[in-house]
C-alpha cells in the first residue's frame, strides 16, 4: 500500500529527479547510444562495436589509458601520504582554536580556482620562474632545470588541486579517534610508526577511502592540469576524448572513449574497495 505523502515531499523530490534525469541519465543514455554509432563506407550510420574496437587497435590509446590509470592511482596515494600528517597535525596536535583557522587557510586554493592556481605553478616552475631563478641566484645550478611542461609539473598540478579533498574526510575521520587509544598504544610499547599503522590509519580508513575516491575521480577526469602543465608527452585520457569531440569532431568515438574511462575508474574503485575490505556504504557516510 502506498503511504500518502504530503506536498512538501514532492516539492523536494521533483527538482532532484529532474536534475538526475535531464542532466545525468538522459545525456548518458544518449552518449551510450552514440558510442555504438559508426559511419560505414557507404556513409550510412550503423550500430557497431567499431568505436570500441579502435581503442584496442591503436596502441597510443592503450598506452594513454594505462598511463592515466597508473598516474591517477599514484597521485591519489601521494595525496594521502602528503596530507595524512597534515590532517593528523590539525586534528590531534594543534589546539582547536588554531586548527579551524589553519583549515581555512588550506581552503584558499579552492576559492582561487584551478586555472589560477595552475598559472601560479607556471610562474613558479618555469625555466625563468621563481624556483629556477632562486637556485641560479644561490649558485646551486647554472642552467635552469626543466620542470614545466613535464610529467613532474603535471603531477604537482594534479596533486595540488586534489589534496584538499583528501584532507577534509581524513580530518573528520581522525576527529572521532579517541586520544587515549594513542596513549594506550604508546603505553603498551608501540612506536610512533606502529601507532600510525595499527591504530590511527585503521581508524581513519573510511575517511581515507572516501577521500581517495574523490581525489581519484577528480584526477582521472581532470583536463586542465594535464593539458596546461603537462608537456607534449604527458598524455592524459581526457585529452583524447576532448580531441574526438572538438578536434576531429567524431562524437561517437569520443562517447565510446568516455564510457571506457567511466568503466576504468569505476573498476579501479571497486577493486580498491574490495582489496581494503571497505564497504561503499560505510565510506559514503
Amino acid at each position, binding site marked *: 500500500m502506498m503511504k500518502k505523502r504530503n506536498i512538501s515531499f514532492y516539492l523536494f523530490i521533483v527538482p532532484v529527479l529532474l536534475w538526475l534525469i535531464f542532466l545525468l541519465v538522459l545525456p548518458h543514455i544518449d552518449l551510450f547510444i552514440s558510442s555504438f554509432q559508426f559511419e560505414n563506407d557507404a556513409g550510412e550510420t550503423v550500430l557497431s562495436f567499431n568505436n570500441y574496437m579502435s581503442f584496442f587497435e591503436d596502441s597510443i590509446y592503450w598506452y594513454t589509458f594505462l598511463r592515466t590509470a597508473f598516474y591517477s592511482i599514484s597521485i591519489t596515494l601521494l595525496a594521502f601520504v602528503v596530507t595524512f600528517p597534515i590532517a593528523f597535525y590539525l586534528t590531534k596536535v594543534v589546539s582547536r582554536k588554531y586548527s579551524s583557522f589553519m583549515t581555512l587557510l588550506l581552503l584558499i586554493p579552492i576559492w582561487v580556482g584551478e586555472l589560477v592556481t595552475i598559472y601560479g605553478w607556471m610562474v613558479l616552475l618555469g625555466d625563468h620562474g621563481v624556483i629556477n631563478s632562486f637556485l641560479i641566484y644561490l649558485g646551486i645550478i647554472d642552467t635552469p632545470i626543466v620542470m614545466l611542461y613535464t610529467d613532474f609539473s603535471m603531477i604537482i598540478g594534479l596533486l595540488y588541486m586534489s589534496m584538499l579533498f583528501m584532507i577534509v574526510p581524513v580530518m573528520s575521520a581522525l576527529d572521532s579517534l579517541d586520544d587515549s587509544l594513542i596513549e594506550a598504544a604508546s*603505553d603498551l610499547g608501540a612506536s610512533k610508526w606502529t601507532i600510525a599503522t*595499527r591504530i590511527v590509519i585503521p581508524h581513519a580508513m573510511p575517511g581515507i577511502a572516501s577521500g581517495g575516491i574523490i581525489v581519484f575521480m577528480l584526477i582521472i577526469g581532470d583536463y586542465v592540469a594535464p593539458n596546461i602543465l603537462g608537456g607534449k608527452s604527458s598524455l592524459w585520457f581526457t585529452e583524447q576524448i576532448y580531441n574526438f569531440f572538438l578536434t576531429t569532431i567524431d562524437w561517437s568515438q569520443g562517447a565510446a572513449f568516455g564510457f571506457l574511462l567511466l568503466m576504468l575508474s569505476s573498476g579501479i574503485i571497486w577493486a580498491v574497495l574490495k582489496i581494503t575490505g571497505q564497504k561503499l556504504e560505510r565510506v559514503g557516510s
Partner: protein
Amino acid sequence: MEHILEVKDLSKYFVGFTAVQSVDFLVEEGGFFSILGPSGCGKTTLLRMISGFEEESEGDIIIRGESMKGIPPEKRPVNIVFQNLALFPMMNVEKNVAFGLQRQKISKSEIATRVKEMLERVGLQGFEKKNVTELSGGQRQRVAIARSLVLKPSILLLDEPLGALDRKLREHMKIELKLLQKEIGTTFIYITHDQSEALVMSDKVAVMNKGRFEQIDTPQNLYKNPKTAFVAGFVGESNPFDIKSYENGVLTTTNGWELPKQNLDYVPTKLFIRPEAFILNPTDDLENVDVVDMKVKTILFDGANTKISATIIQSKDVVLISLPQNAQFEDLKEGDIVKVGIHQDDLKCYKD
C-alpha cells in the same frame, strides 16, 4: 619489604595553577596502593607523570631504584588501565591483549601461550575472537587489565577504571580486582574519587586534596584516625560542625551545642563525629560520655545501613546517627525524643 616506587618531592605546574605540589610517597612491592581524592585534586596528573605522559616540573619518580626522568611511556616498566579503558575497537580480544607483546621481540608461539594464559586468568577464555565492542562492561574491564598485565609490568596503574560501570557491577569488580591483585602479586596503583573503592581494595591509601597528599595510611587508620579535617570529612561519613570556641574543656559549636573535650592544646575550628559514634540510650555508668537529647527528624531506612536524622534540641544542629544492628530501635519514629551519648574520643577536632 622493598620499595618498588619512590616518588620524591614531585610537582607539576601548569600555566596559572599547580596540579601536583611536593608529593612524596613510597609504594611497597606487591602492594595495592590507592590515591583517593575529589575530581580535580591532581590525582590523574600524578598518574600521568608516573606513566610518562606528563613531564614532572620538579622532583623525581624512581621505579626499582631507577629514575624515570626523560624516559618515554613506551619504555617505562609501568602500564596503565585508562578510565575509558581505551580498548582498540579495530582488533578482537586476542589481538588487543597481544598488542603489547607483539611490540617486543617475542616469538609468535610464546605470544599465543601468554595471551591464552592471561585470558584464562581473567576468566575470558572462549572470548578470543570476539570484537571488543561486543563485550559487556565487566568483560571490557578485564580485557583492559589483561592487556596490561600480560606485559608483566612492575606497576599497574589504574585510572578510575570502575567509574563507567553500574553500581552492582562496580561492587562486584571491586572484590574481583582485589582478589586478582592478590593472586598475581603485581603492584597496583589505583586512583579513584570513590572512598569505598579505595578502602575496600587497598593496603594503603593516600588522600589527595588540591595537589597535595593529606595523609597516607592503611584504610583502617584513615577511617579511625584521620589526620586532617579534609580526610575526616572526605573518608567515610561524618557529621561536620564548626567550632566557635573552646574554653575550660568545653567545645561550643557555632549553633551553641556545648560538648566537653579534655586536654586539647589548641583551639579547634572543625569537629567531626561519625554516625556510628553516637550511642543511643546510653547507660549512666559510661565514663567520658556526654549525653544530649535529640528529636528524631526522619528515619532513613537502608537495610543494614539504616540511619536516623535527628535534631539536637539544645542547638538545632541536625546529625545522622547509625542505628545498631538489632531490633532494639525498630519502633523508633519521627518526633521521638532520644538520649544520645558521645564519647570524648570520638570527637575528632581539627584546626584549619
